[in-house]
Structures are given as C-alpha cells and as structure tokens.
C-alpha cells in the first residue's frame, strides 16, 4: 500500500500536547475494568518520564455515559466538567489530561460549546456557583492520556526492554489499532492525525517495532452504544459490531489489538469470549482469542514491567501467547495470586475459548 499521501494528510492535523505538569482526570470504566492501566499511566509519567502529575481525590465522574445515554442534559455535564476544572484551578495546574475517550469528547464538547455559544459559559458558571460556591477557569490545554504516551513514544523506546517483534521470525508483530470513536470523530482537530488517519496508536506501535494492519472496518465502532450496552436486551448491538470488526480483521492475522478507549478494550476482549461460546468461533491461533490491550499495557510490556502488575490477569482473552511471541518472561503461577501472594483460586475455564 502506498502511504506517502496519507502521511501527508496526517501532517495537516497536529495538536499541542503539553510537556509536563498534568492534572489527571480518571475514567469510570477503566477504574473498574482495567484498574492497573490507570496506575501504569501514572507510573510511566512519574517514574519513567520524570514528569509531574496530580491525582485528585476530589474528582468524580464527568457524567459522560449518562449524557450519551440521554439521562442528563448537557447543562448538567458542563457543570460537572466545570467543577473538575475548578479542582484543577485549586492546585494551580493548566494541563488537563483525561484517561477516558468518552470524557475526552465530553471535555472537548464543553469547551467548544462555551467558545461558540458564550451564553452557555455564563450559565455554567452560574450553575456551578449556585450548586457548590465554586468558580472556575478552563485549562490551557486538554489532552488524552494516549496523546502523552504518543508524545513520549521515542523516550519509551529508548528505555525499552522488549520490542514488538516476533522473536522466532524476527519480523514485526502485526497490530490492529482501534481508536475510540469519541477521541477524534466528534472533533477531528482534537486528535493526533484527525478522525480518518489518527496516528496516536499507530505512532506508538511503529516506534516500538510493530507493523500496523489496515483492514476494511478499521474505523468501525466497537459497538458500545451507551444505552445499548447498559440495557441487557439491546446488548446484541454491541456484540454484533465487535463481530463486524473481528470478521474484517481476521484474514490479516493480527498478533494483537491496541486501543485507546476503556470501553473498546473491554468489549473487544469480552465479546470474543461470547462469540467463541455461542458460535464456536475463535479469532486467534489454536483456539485462543486475539489479545486486546490498552496502550499502557503495551508500553508496560515494552518497558519490561512485571506482566501481572499490569493487570493482564483481568483479560478474558489470554495475553500469554503474545508474551511468548515477543519473548517476555512471566511466572504463570503469579497470575492467580493475591496481594500477599495468597492463593485466591482461578477463574473457571470457558468451554470453547482457550485460555492459560
């Protein structure tokens, strides 16, 4: 494939990513489903890159899932966003870094709304003052956490213990990148590379030795669907859309999938289990699934962090075959030990999907 033209298009879309001194806004979904990725981000920022980041005890949900499920109005969401900004003001920071893609869309939408409809900013200020007594000033820059890892991908490469290369063949691992829809589809200029050719994840993968797969349904939604996933009888929507993606990527034989959205990581991991159990269909080699990883998990593996401190044991699709390909050592017994190395049992094995 000729990609020179595409790369030139990407160059038109560049965003400012702050260097240091971040205020960290957490993700509801990720704290529950991939809690270690939230911690790994902080570890990389503080210990690997030597940057300053503030983790605030006072922050709450941004209400993004409620807004996109049409449960709260944007007045509510903008006022909650304003409270988070007020918390950032309290610690004199100006770079607001968001670990959730839905939230990233929410914060971007609030700031764009205030800019284009100034009366909404005044109304938000009034709501916040009435409800909490607080005032607020918007950040100078907002960025997604994957933007920060992208910015420092070469520094991570310099400290890498492993590269995304098959140790047996010496060839780059073949990787599917999946960008959460609200990272750049709502506001293309807010994402690195825009909405059609985002380079935030492909940039990391190529820096760390892997090769990106282009496939027909590359930009298709994972299928979260907000209300559709929450409502049990509508959940088939989510499953069906994930299946569209895996059916489309399967012929290209990806070694793994990397995502920058908490929901996408979860759905693309769990729906593979469901498809296996319902349809007897698995997408990886030898009855396994295709591992789906957060960018912090990938960065952590590249940097040589102990695999089971990265939370890989919380995936339903086993990551061990990927670690074997790269040559990352792991102690499988450690996978199922608790905090004090106590035995905590093991998950039941699925009937169809192979797991380790």
């Amino acid at each position, binding site marked *: 494939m000729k990609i020179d033209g595409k790369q030139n298009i990407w160059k038109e879309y560049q965003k400012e990513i702050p260097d240091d001194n971040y205020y960290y806004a957490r993700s509801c979904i990720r704290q529950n489903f991939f809690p270690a990725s*939230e911690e790994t981000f902080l570890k990389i920022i503080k210990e690997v890159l030597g940057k300053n980041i503030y*983790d605030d005890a006072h922050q709450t*949900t941004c*209400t993004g*899932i409620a807004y996109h499920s049409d449960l709260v109005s944007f007045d509510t969401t903008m006022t909650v966003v304003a409270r988070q900004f007020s918390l950032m003001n309290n610690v004199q920071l100006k770079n607001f870094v968001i670990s959730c893609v839905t939230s990233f869309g929410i914060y971007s939408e609030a700031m764009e709304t205030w800019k284009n409809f100034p009366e909404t900013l005044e109304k938000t200020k009034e*709501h916040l003052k009435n409800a909490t007594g607080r005032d607020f000033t918007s950040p100078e820059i907002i960025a997604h956490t994957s933007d920060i890892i992208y910015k420092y991908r070469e520094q991570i490469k310099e400290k890498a213990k492993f590269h995304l290369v098959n140790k047996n063949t010496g060839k780059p691992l073949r990787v599917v990148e999946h960008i959460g829809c*609200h990272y750049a589809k709502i506001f293309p200029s807010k994402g690195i590379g825009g909405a059609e050719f985002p380079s935030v994840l492909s940039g990391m993968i190529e820096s760390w030795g892997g090769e990106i797969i282009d496939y027909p349904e590359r930009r298709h939604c994972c299928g*979260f669907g907000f209300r559709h996933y929450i409502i049990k009888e509508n959940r088939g929507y989510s499953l069906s859309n994930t299946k569209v993606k895996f059916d489309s990527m399967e012929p290209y034989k990806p070694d793994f999938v990397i995502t920058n959205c908490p929901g996408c990581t979860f759905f693309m991991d*769990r729906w593979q289990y469901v498809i296996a159990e319902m349809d007897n269909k698995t997408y990886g080699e030898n009855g396994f699934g295709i591992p789906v990883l957060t960018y912090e998990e990938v960065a952590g593996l590249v940097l040589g962090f102990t695999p089971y401190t990265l939370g890989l044991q919380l995936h339903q699709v086993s990551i061990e075959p990927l670690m074997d390909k790269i040559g990352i050592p792991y102690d499988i017994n450690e996978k199922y030990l608790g905090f004090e190395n106590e035995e*905590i049992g093991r998950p039941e094995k699925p009937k169809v999907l192979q797991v380790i």
Partner: protein
Amino acid sequence: MKPESKNIKEVLEKDILFIEGLNGCINCGTCTAICPAAKFFDYDPRQLMDTVQSMNNDELIELLKSDIIWYCGQCLSCKTRCPRNNVPGFIITALRRLSQDIGYFAQSAEGRKQLTVKRIVGENIIKYGYCVYIDEIELNGHPEQGPVWQWYKNNAASILKKLGANYKGSGEGTLREISESDLAELNSILKETGALEKFDNIERYCHED
C-alpha cells in the same frame, strides 16, 4: 417551561445540538452507510434527517413517540463523514431530550428502556459518584463478563490492592471511595441543573398508564 406538542419546532430550533446538527441535508445517505445502528436496527439516519428537515409538526410528534430515535448508539461516526457537516447523532440527542421532557418517550418500547438506564447509571452516579461501579456489576446481569469477572469480583480487595488501586479507600487513587462532601457537591449539581427532576420524570412517566 414544559414544552408542549404544539411548539416542538420552536423548542428544537433553540437546541444547540439541533442548530449544530442540521445544516441542509442533501439526503446523500452517507450517514446511513457508515452508521453501526443502521446495520443492525430498522434505523435510517438519512430518512430521519429528511423528516426533521421538513419540520412538519405531526411528523415530528410521531418521531418523538417512536422507537426510531432510540436506536442510535452515539458513536458520532456520522459527524466525521457527512459532506455537509450535518450530525444525525446530535439531532437524535435533541429529539431524545424533547421526547423525555414531554413524556412521549414512554409511548415507545425503546423509549421506556430509559427506566433501566436511569436505575443503573443514574443511581450509580448518585450513590457512588461513578457512572459504573464494580460492586453493582453481577455476572447474572452481565454474563458476557465471563468467568474472569467472577474471579475478580470474588477477590476484588486483594486483586485491586495488588494492582495498585485504592478500592473503597480514602484519598486519591483508582476506585477510591468518593467522599461525602464531594458526593454532596455532585448531587447539588444534579439538583441545580435539573438532572434529579429528569430522573424522577422518567420514573413517573414510565409508571403512568
């Protein structure tokens, strides 16, 4: 003021998402081609935009009472692809908002499912300060979570501590308990901006015959 069925057009035209989302649709169908919801539901955003653009009050009322407006998954893929900068996903949000304000949502099977959304997401926000919370997610309601979730739930305190989280702890950290004072501020915002009233309305309309 509560919107009435006779002034739907006026209410919609004041909605920022409606203003941003409708810029002269040429009915090319690009939105339908790209739409994940159109792939699996009897849903056609091109047709929806056509109806909305006509601004016929009776047709708008029919739309607000229908299942159609509840199929969109809010991925906003349509925003990126529309050649005329229309955003069916934004129009859907404006229509859903109005349908709930008037109470029409309770006249469609899909609309009534807002009750489930309110009882899960709305009550999580009020109780925990998170949209999603581990303690509320059980395998019988979420079988797709798989056996690994059951194992994680059974051993949550130990596993989360191993992964560096601060589950139910005070102060900062992953899955920390949000303090009473912070929850009080959040709930005060919900009250000030009408969210609690909206939650009550969902319950009320869904229980009216």
